[in-house]
């Protein structure tokens, strides 16, 4: 087993967490945080280049390599953003150096948890890893210690724990179904083994297991009606955490659902998981798009937008087929990049304006042209307009959905349109009109924002053939 190839993306964050726990001074530690995230990214790149052979603990295939690459990349850019964001928080006294140490440690632990969940071949280990990632984000969400932040963290915590419990029960059931076929022990938890024998499993247990897994990991992915923790956790935590939550943690939960979906799809007697995912996805998208209207808090609004996108992605994967799966995958990548870019701008904006209340943010394109246009560009991307990447994935999702199941595509269209109207309505108010309030200089770091949007832009126009083949292969795996 080539432990070293995989270990980079696991050990670096873990070691970094240990070092960060010891490092004094927020400047050093934020720089070290960037360095560690960069090394993890390098490790992931190495992983793309040299894929380790299949092991019973680790599995790196076409599918999770997408997630890993995305995860480490956004993790890195977020750490860059985080450095400038944190500096401002220290200066305004919202965070103390002590809390920051805590923050950086958990940042790396969270990265470790997510990477572990992605690379592992073991559904038990995956469960543990997701739990770890969740717990560390809970702590980061509550870091401001305001009543709102504590309320949000507590809600996240309780709902998340219930979700974790469900996922564990589902995992146990999978094992119970597998055990008569593959025998007791580690085999019953190894995903590749499970997949190979899935068709022989007892479908009745698998059905129950699917319900629990979908509800368990669905809570993490923010699917309706299990999403309640998500908006508040995004709104009340530090913005880098919001970016990571939206951009990465939701993906990890989705990844877990997808892995199980493949498992279930391989058994012909199990209730096909697709339709349930489609229904849940649609309900999520429609619900979240309407929830976008009465928002007052900018971060909470974009959190609902993330829920909406998770709904669309779940729908696309539920629909299945080469086109829809490709679209879902593309949408997921694009959403991660775009949404984290938006949160980067939003973080700087709320720092510059000193508020997250949208009614107090006016005329950004005039007062802070780069931030304002960055926000507009991000919003244009997230609502699915060309020339940015989300347009392509939504094009594929809707067209293949409408051609195959017209009645399911209509709610999707309603959701997209409603979300479009809502986000544009709020953005119009913030980006345009006469500028309001004093214009304070902002020392924002625009590089992460524009790197993300640049990639999204490039993907909207041209996707390299290698990536296409890669994604198509994943789409095929997903069935």
């Amino acid at each position, binding site marked *: 087993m080539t432990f070293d190839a995989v270990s980079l993306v696991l050990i670096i964050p873990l070691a970094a967490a240990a070092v960060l726990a010891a490092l004094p001074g927020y400047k050093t530690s934020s720089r070290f945080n960037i360095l560690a995230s960069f090394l993890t990214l390098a490790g992931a790149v190495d992983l793309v280049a040299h894929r380790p052979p299949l092991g019973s603990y680790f599995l790196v295939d076409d599918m999770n390599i997408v997630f890993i690459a995305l995860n480490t990349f956004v993790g890195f850019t977020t750490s860059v953003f985080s450095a400038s964001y944190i500096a401002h928080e220290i200066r305004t006294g919202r965070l103390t150096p002590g809390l920051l140490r805590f923050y950086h440690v958990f940042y790396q632990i969270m990265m470790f948890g997510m990477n572990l969940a992605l690379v592992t071949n073991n559904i038990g280990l995956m469960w543990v890893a997701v739990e770890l990632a969740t717990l560390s984000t809970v702590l980061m969400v509550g870091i401001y210690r305001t009543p*709102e932040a504590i309320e949000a963290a*507590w809600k996240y915590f309780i709902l998340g724990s219930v979700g*974790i419990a469900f996922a564990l029960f589902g995992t146990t059931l999978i094992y*119970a179904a597998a055990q008569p076929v593959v025998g007791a022990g580690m085999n019953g938890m190894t995903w590749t083994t499970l997949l190979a024998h899935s068709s022989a499993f007892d479908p*009745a247990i698998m059905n129950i297991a699917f319900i629990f897994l979908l509800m368990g990991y669905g809570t993490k992915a923010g699917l309706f009606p299990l999403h309640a923790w998500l908006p*508040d956790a995004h709104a009340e935590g530090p913005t880098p955490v919001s970016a990571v939550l939206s951009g990465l943690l939701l993906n990890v939960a989705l990844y877990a659902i997808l892995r199980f979906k493949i498992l279930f799809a391989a058994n012909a007697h199990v209730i096909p998981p697709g339709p349930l995912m489609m229904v849940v996805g649609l309900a999520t998208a429609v619900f979240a798009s309407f929830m976008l209207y009465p928002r*007052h808090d900018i971060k*909470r609004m974009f959190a609902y937008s993330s829920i909406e996108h998770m709904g669309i992605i779940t729908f696309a994967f539920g629909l299945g087929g080469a086109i829809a799966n490709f679209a879902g995958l593309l949408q997921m990548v694009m959403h991660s990049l775009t949404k984290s870019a938006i949160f980067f701008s939003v973080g700087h904006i709320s720092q510059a304006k000193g508020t997250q209340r949208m009614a107090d943010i006016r005329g950004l394109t005039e007062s802070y042209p780069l931030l304002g246009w960055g926000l507009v560009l991000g919003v244009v991307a997230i609502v699915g307009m060309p020339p940015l990447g989300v347009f392509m994935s939504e094009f594929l999702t809707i067209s293949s959905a409408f051609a195959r199941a017209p009645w399911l595509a209509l709610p999707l269209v309603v959701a997209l349109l409603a979300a479009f109207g809502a986000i544009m309505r709020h953005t119009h108010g913030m980006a345009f009109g006469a500028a309001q309030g004093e214009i304070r200089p902002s020392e924002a770091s625009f590089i992460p924002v524009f790197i993300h949007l640049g990639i999204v832009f490039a993907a909207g126009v041209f996707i390299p053939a290698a990536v296409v083949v890669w994604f198509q292969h994943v789409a095929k795996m997903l069935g």
Partner: protein
Amino acid sequence: MGTLDFNIAHMLAGALMLASMTMLYQKRLFALINIYALQAVILALSVAWQAVLQHAAQLYITALIAFLFKALVIPYALHRIIVRLRIHREIETVIGTGPAMLAGMALTGLAMAVMLRATANVDLLAREDLAFALAVLLLGLMMMVTRRNAVSQIVGFLSLENGLILAAAGTQGMPFVVEISIAFSILVAFVVIGVFLFRIRERFDTVDLRALDAFRGERRLAEAFPATTACNEGDEMP
């Protein structure tokens, strides 16, 4: 597997469920915690018995953790919290014994109907354990739903989690049971510490909406700047 072996396992699992059901209608917090401690002891016994049956040494560790941590440390900590938060005199409005029993039985019935039908091919022991585990899980969740007090909700979650450990231990040869139980213990510790650390006072959840909303960011904004009363007034396009 002998009949006696099975019967003992069955009895322990049944007792676990019974404890869950009893918790549903406990009005006093201390009583609630005591029953929880009792449930934890039963869980420890149950897991230990599984260890005997499956010849799985690591399950003893799980049993030990369950006993030490869940039956001793956590109840003690919860006692302390209750005293510190001065809510030990409080009497909760919970559903009465009769309805609680009815609801509990309905949930148990559902759990049985779901699990027993599905697990026809699994070995008998695991089958019973899974069914009881689901029942305990549902009962725990129901308790979380019916209680308004943070501490009793936590207790609900803890009993829910006991069900999970039962299921994990009851399934033949499942790996990571120890790890999972440790992970859960950490989680529970966090929960308990969370209550303490975050100073979630007696009720973060009351019937009084205003008290509730004090901690809700969005609502506060909405109150200060009333939202459009779209349903009454009509259009609000910008």
